[in-house]
């Protein structure tokens, strides 16, 4: 009820209000490529945002490659030192350290790229 009264009161305009409305009124502004320009900016922003994660992962991977290789190599050595009957022949059939690290990095990059393409 109160809101109805407020709305009615708002609708009751005096001459001064009508005059101000006519003075404040303005012609619509033609778009002339304005909206397209913003959409392009938004698309560029989205593209950059989607690229950021895979690129950061690749750069981080490149920096971390040596440390990762060292870590995997240490784990590999530990695995080889375990008694043969615990690990069995699995230890002997493991690929080289470089192959494991590179494979892991390629897998991560591929997952991130697929996510980006999906978006």
């Amino acid at each position, binding site marked *: 009820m109160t809101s109805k009264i407020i709305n009615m009161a708002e609708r009751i305009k005096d001459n001064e209000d009508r005059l101000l409305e006519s003075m*404040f009124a*303005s012609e619509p*502004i033609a778009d002339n490529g*304005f909206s397209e320009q*913003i*959409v392009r900016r938004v698309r560029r922003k*989205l593209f950059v945002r989607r690229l950021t994660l895979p690129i950061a992962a690749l750069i981080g991977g490149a920096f971390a490659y040596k440390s990762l290789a060292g870590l995997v190599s240490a784990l590999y050595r530990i695995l080889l030192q375990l008694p043969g009957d615990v690990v069995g022949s699995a230890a002997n059939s493991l690929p080289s350290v470089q192959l494991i690290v590179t494979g892991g990095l390629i897998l991560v990059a591929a997952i991130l790229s697929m996510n980006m393409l999906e978006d």
Partner: protein
Amino acid sequence: MIHGEDNELVASVLASQDTAAFGELIRRHQSHVRNFLRKLTGDISMADDLAQDCFMHAWDKLQTFSGRGSFIGWLLKVAYTTFLQSKRKSKRYAEILDQVGHASEVEGRSYAVQSEEVGDLDKFLAVLTDEERAIMVMSYACGLSHREISETTAMPVGTVKSVIFRGKEKIRTSFDIKDHQHG
């Protein structure tokens, strides 16, 4: 051309980052936003730059649109915030210029009348403060209700009404408003 209500387009943007739907929202409301900012700044190119920034902010903050009020009301809120941020930046810039001893052209230029032909509206707007100008423009140019203006500016409805009253009073005392009625 995409059809549908504003809220449907907003939902589409939020669900799938649909830039085409966002483009349609811009096409629908760019004229209102640009006119609002032109009246606030009095400078066409500055207003259009701010309008671009406003739509970029709108893209980033679209999830804050609750869908309860009108989309244009929410958009004008973003535009007003963008305008105020730009004013603050200009003020800081002016202060830095002052510190290094340059005369500042920015400070004190609250409303820049760009054209040589100063219209009645420009004269009216020039006597108002930023806040009064924004609220008067929302009310008389954009047709927002007092309640919508209150939501847009985060002011109580009573304050909005008193700002409009004060604005009208200033215009009335600065100009003989009846002179414009017939001329």
